[in-house]
């Protein structure tokens, strides 16, 4: 029962990531795309943790920890590039 709930949660997160990707493609300016990418990163981390609990693979949660820090660093570098200091 709770495994079904986790599966539904994982599928819903994938659908939300696709909707965010539409904004990343459509976005009129560059910061719009960066904001959509940031939302996609957060959703992907939640997706990884959910799949790790669903499939009982702790490796997925370790990957999610590394993904959090790498997404933070990439966001900071994109912001620095937008600012014109890179």
């Amino acid at each position, binding site marked *: *029962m*709770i495994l079904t*709930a*986790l599966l539904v*949660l994982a599928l*819903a*997160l994938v659908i*939300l990531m696709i*909707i*965010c990707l*539409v*904004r990343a493609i459509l976005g009129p*300016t560059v*910061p*719009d795309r*960066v*904001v*959509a990418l*940031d*939302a996609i990163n*957060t*959703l992907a*981390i*939640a997706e990884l*943790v*959910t799949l*790790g*609990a669903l499939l*009982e693979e*702790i490796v997925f*949660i*370790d990957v*999610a*920890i590394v993904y*959090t*820090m790498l*997404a*933070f660093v990439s*966001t*900071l570098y*994109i*912001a*620095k590039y*937008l*600012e*014109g200091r890179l």
Partner: protein
Amino acid sequence: MIWVIYCFLAIGIIFQALGTVALHRFPDVYTRLHGSTLCTTFGSIFIYLGIILYGVRLYFLEKAGYASLITHTILILVLLMITNPTGAHAIARATHRSGIMPKYAVVDKLKERRR
């Protein structure tokens, strides 16, 4: 206990969906950043709390692998609460410095102060 897990997961996915809707319904970069970052961070916190309670339930059912599930999820919760607002702040500051202004704004205090 299982209904508490269901409630946490439901609150989490509802707020993630609100954050995704906010990306499409707002007219401006700054409002989109505000809505999407706040809602996705709040929803992620509740999803992780649900996963932590799922690990506690695995402990009471005496299954293997609960300890690393709980500790790693707590670690990723702390990391997300530190990094996500910081990244949003950096994006907003860089957007303002790159010359894109808010759409319906009347005053701009940051521009006045930097002058």
